[in-house]
């Protein structure tokens, strides 16, 4: 009787449903939790992603509603199923862009609009990764989603992948955020390899002051132009520029404060946990994940190369007035990529202050990657 009761208890618990694959995924999620907490690799997103992964891979006995299960037989679905609709419908990435907009200063870009070309050049990795992904047997939709990792923009990568290749969402999100955290390790060797010491030493002249009127007009102008040219980019660019207008108008302080604090934090929690919860063993433990990790790294490297080469070209055309290092900041990842350019510039010349100059290409990269995502979405949806 007692043994039967114990057996029944064990069969009714998750232990009975544990498989080798789910154990591997649980261990992997614990490793990611370690990286987030101890190594501080993008902890704001990696921690909820890793915890979502842990939650979804803890097996649930037959008959119970799983966290990601939809409604069935008159029973409501799991909690994460409902939260995941925000990812599926592209709501969370757009809301994160709203928050990013309120935190972004487009002043350096307005002062030197040629930074836009650096932001465009740094999307080079998207194209290279796309081509290689097609060569490796991915469908065009999957290849486009993998390529966008090169844009170094987490919300954009999640937005595009949720529309084109939702099955690859966990691998792409984790690869994108991991590489963004590794930018200080990935970029400097490429920067040093592609530039001479003389180029890295270039001191740039101070940027002009940008008036409030220019800053207020900028988001309106970008919204009108980008959405007229590329309607598919409306959710991302529209929200980014709305957030920026909140900030620059100076009349919506409460909205700006909410968007850049409470709202972005809440959405980050929902986004992270639900993206992590899509990482089931069947989807994640596949050769495709390894390929995505490799292609993501390649996309990041080539985006850095593209930005640097454009930077070198602009340095040449400007008669040596532009430090090519700022080109590497064209890979969105605000403001980490700009900080890396600053650090490398200062290593070559301690009196070099490139941060503000690099912020121009950095925010141009955000626009550039959103535009690239819009183009890919229009082509492959």
């Amino acid at each position, binding site marked *: 009787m007692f043994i039967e009761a114990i057996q029944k208890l064990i069969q009714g618990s998750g232990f009975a449903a544990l498989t080798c694959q789910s154990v591997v995924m649980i261990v992997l999620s614990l490793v990611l939790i370690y990286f987030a907490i101890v190594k501080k690799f993008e902890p704001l997103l990696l921690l909820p992603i890793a915890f979502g992964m842990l939650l979804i891979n803890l097996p649930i006995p037959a008959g119970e509603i799983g966290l990601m299960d939809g409604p069935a037989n008159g029973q409501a679905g799991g909690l994460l199923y409902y939260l995941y609709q925000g990812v599926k419908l592209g709501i969370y990435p757009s809301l994160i862009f709203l928050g990013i907009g309120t935190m972004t200063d487009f002043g350096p870009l307005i002062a030197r*609009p040629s930074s836009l070309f650096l932001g465009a050049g740094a999307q080079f990795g998207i194209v290279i990764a796309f081509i290689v992904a097609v060569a490796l047997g991915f469908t065009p939709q999957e*290849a486009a989603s993998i390529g966008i990792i090169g844009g170094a923009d987490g919300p954009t990568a999640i937005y595009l992948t949720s529309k084109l290749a939702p099955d690859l969402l966990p691998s792409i999100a984790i690869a994108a955020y991991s590489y963004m955290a590794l930018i200080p390790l990935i970029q400097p060797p490429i920067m040093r390899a592609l530039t001479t010491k003389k180029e890295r030493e270039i001191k740039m002249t101070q940027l002009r002051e940008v008036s409030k009127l*220019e800053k207020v007009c*900028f988001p309106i*102008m970008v919204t009108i132009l980008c959405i007229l040219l590329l309607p598919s980019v409306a959710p991302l660019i529209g929200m980014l520029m709305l957030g920026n207008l909140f900030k620059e108008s100076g009349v919506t302080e409460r909205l700006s404060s909410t968007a850049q604090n409470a709202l972005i934090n809440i959405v980050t929690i929902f986004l992270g946990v639900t993206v992590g919860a899509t990482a089931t063993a069947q989807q994640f433990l596949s050769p495709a994940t390894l390929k995505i990790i490799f292609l993501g790294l390649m996309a990041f490297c080539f985006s850095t190369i593209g930005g640097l080469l454009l930077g070198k070209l602009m340095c040449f055309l400007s008669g040596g007035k532009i430090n090519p290092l700022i080109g590497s900041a064209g890979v969105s990842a605000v403001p980490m990529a700009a900080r890396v350019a600053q650090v490398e510039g200062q290593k070559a010349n301690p009196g070099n202050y490139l941060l503000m100059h690099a912020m121009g290409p950095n925010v141009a990269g955000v626009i550039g990657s959103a535009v690239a995502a819009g183009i890919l979405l229009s082509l492959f949806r």
Partner: protein
Amino acid sequence: MTVSEAALVGVFCMSLVFGILAVLYFLIRIFTAGIRKFESRRAEKNRS
């Protein structure tokens, strides 16, 4: 999709990204020049 088709799509995408950002570049130049002119005129008027 073949690799050569993917390469074509890639070139097309990059051209579009550059094209859209180039249009944005010229618009910013024109708008900011206009705004700065407007602001300097207004400042002049206020001074006089």
